[in-house]
């Protein structure tokens, strides 16, 4: 039995070097990239600025990878780390990961900034877009009122795919 397990562990290790998996983190960053295409800010110049509230964790790394590879109509995407709302001005989007969900309240008064969260119920507590997982697939909730309040336009095409709360 011991041999049997060792063989499997070794085998598992050899697999992983050659393959990647679509994790929730990867899919969420691709959603965010797509969202940018369906929103309109008055203050866009030559880049889309996204702030990530937290540290250089796995989700941040995925954002970084996405930002490095993608652009929208010739405009670059940048991703920066911030810790609190006082550093958040000038960003088009702020992403608050689940483990920092309690910071949401402090981000609720920003103008021209879309706040994206990933914890059940947060679309009703002040975020613009909130990711949830249903039956193993990622869904997003949109709070339309918050978009109006922060003067960012969202296309009806995107609203049709969202769970509007």
């Amino acid at each position, binding site marked *: 039995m011991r041999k049997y*397990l060792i063989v499997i562990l070794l085998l598992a290790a050899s697999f992983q070097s050659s393959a990647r*998996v*679509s994790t929730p983190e990867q899919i969420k960053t691709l959603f965010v990239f797509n969202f940018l295409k369906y929103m309109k800010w008055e203050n866009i110049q030559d880049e889309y600025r996204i702030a990530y509230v937290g540290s250089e964790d796995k989700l941040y790394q995925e954002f970084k990878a996405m930002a490095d590879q993608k652009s929208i109509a010739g405009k670059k995407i940048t991703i920066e780390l911030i810790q609190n709302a006082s550093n958040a001005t000038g960003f088009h989007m702020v992403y608050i990961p689940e483990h920092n969900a309690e910071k949401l309240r402090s981000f609720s008064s920003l103008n021209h900034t879309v706040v994206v969260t990933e914890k059940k119920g947060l679309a009703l507590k002040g975020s613009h877009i909130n990711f949830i997982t249903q039956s193993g697939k990622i869904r997003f909730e949109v709070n339309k009122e918050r978009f109006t309040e922060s003067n960012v336009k969202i296309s009806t095409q995107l609203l049709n*795919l969202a769970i509007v709360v």
Partner: protein
Amino acid sequence: MKNYITNILTFLMLLSSVQVMAQQESDKDLMEMSIEELLEVEVYSVSKKKESLFEAPLSSSIITGKQIQQAGVTNIPEALRLVPGLIVRETTNGNYDVHLRGFDNLNRYSDASTGGNQITLAMIDGRPVFNNNIGGVFWESLPVDIIDIERIEVVRGPAAALYGPNAVSGVINIITKSREEEGYYTDAQINYGVQEGFNPATTTAGLRVGYKASEKLNLTLSGNFQNRKRLDDQYFSYFDNEYVILDSVKSTYGLNEGEPLSAEQQDYAFPNGSNESLQKLGTNLFIDYKANDWLSFNGQVGYQNASSQRVFRQNPYTPLSVLSLESFYANLQVKASDLTARFSFTNGNDDLNSVPFFLPSGDSIMIAYTYENADINLEYSWSPMQNLSIVPGVSYQRSTYSDNNLDDEPNQLGLLNGRKTLFNLSASLRGDYQPIEDLRIIAAARADRFTKPEKVYISYEFATAYSLNENNFLRAVISRSNSGAFMGQTFIDLSQEYTVQTPFGGFNGIADFNGNQNLELFQLQLFEVGYRSRLMSNLEIDLELFHQRSQNSNEIVDDEIPSQYFAPISNVQIFKNLPLEASQFGATLGLNYLPSNELQIRPFVTVQETTTTGLPTGYNTPERNPLNNIFTTTEEENIQTPTIYGGLIVNYQPTEKWNINLNSYYLDAHTQFNEYDRSNTDSSAGEIETNLINNLNIMYRATDFLAINFNARNLANNQNREYYGADRKGYVLMGGLSLSL
């Protein structure tokens, strides 16, 4: 063993070469996906289970209905082989003995029924499905089957403080499917399998039809059926200490010692023939009604009828006997705001020993009875602060068993000798507190007041979980649980005098079997630490180290024979607590590895060692035998439980249409004992060799609503027995259809 490893290796390598190519393709595609396409991507999130009490701090596992279907499992207890920490041994085709982390056959020379698992609580949607007569779960008597399952949740370790008495070694909770989309729906499954020689082995079928009228109302009607044949044609004969055909099985007891079962007795003992192993039928109606946001009702009613031939109650001939089990149930759960109430009622009849146990008088002892179980639970969930919830609860359980039904049967004696009732009233309190984000503490206590023994038992559970960072997680549990009181152990009451005529004149004898209303309840104490880590985004490791101690075992033992009876033809027995205590150390390691979207690899293994102190050298009261009795004891390593057991699941889904699943289950060699071995020390029936069972299931989804599968169970045809006196295994080749409309 080597061959199996080679087989598995080749299979995995084949998969890997295909999947690397497929993956490079899909990585590129992913980056170009539209929102519509992203919404369809399934994501793996091994660390984020549904937030519930069940989650993180306790040692728990979940297996979903989908995983069960992918593995080609066609039976609920067999599905438990996909879960870490469970010892699942097949006795005859479709019948299983299930133990959580062991503590099985502790007393060694127990009767086959008391040697079964009396200490794990099984539930369907929170309703206990537990046999209160002898303790334990009769898996064949579950009214639901594979087609009804949304998921099975398993909690390892004592958890009575959270789930009620009998959650001593853990809890197995079967959750039935719920429906999200509105409208009519139908699910159907049918499987047919053959054994060696293309003889029929297994037929299973399931059907669910339902209608979700609105968000508020959902109705589902389900039915299930299983018919299984034995894969072996022999029986272990206690008398000859070997496996023989039924005609050659002989009695070891009383005046007919050495005599085979007559044709008439065979017909009576094995009414469906010696070939049948399981016939099972169940039907259920589920009604869910949500009146408004704060009031909802979930109701279920159902019926089941089963007949199984498996290793069960002691009889003087052979370990196999036939059980016939029939019951109705009703269950209603009402949620009104923060208050949850559950009412359940079961009414049934069991006939547990078809193989007669004849007394010298010619009468036979039967365990056949009717029963009624009623349960009421009330819980209130109160959150004084956002990070604190407190749940007080009360519950009432009442159980009535009667063998008055035997009164009209000539020459049949019931062990209970009438109608007996046990009930318990309990109060519980649990708190779930998260003082800081990374720390969670669960504390729970429950007091059960039993009628027999007339006493209050306290169960408790402290569990704490701490996130070191987002990828590393530590937890610890201290808990203690006790079993409930069981009818048999408490109330057995059979006494019969007789005279045996000999050439030297008549001798008076007595058969006198007694329960014990003051038996202390079996208790288990646990200390456990666990560590979970996401080593990589697609590799999670789950390690648990546990130490458990048991006390208050009991057994029926020989008692003093009053002097007016002639000892060689008399039998006086009573249930007694034993000084026996078992101590166990063990570790379970599980990995969940997702090299790609298409491939999942999940190995798990448990290594454990149990030592028993206070093991009696003789199952007698001191009055019966002052030199060799339950208080003259030894210390022994417990060899009755496998030291190593575990499994491996490899699931490969190369395209939407194909799914290939290889699952293996391993049991280390061990030695079981039986009451019969006391007088037959040469017996080898309990020597269980190493078992490795490999199953392969290939599914093809032909259309959105139709899937077909080919399923090879035990494909390497390992023939080793897995349990004392059980059947030799064989392979079964199955084909199946499943329909979803």
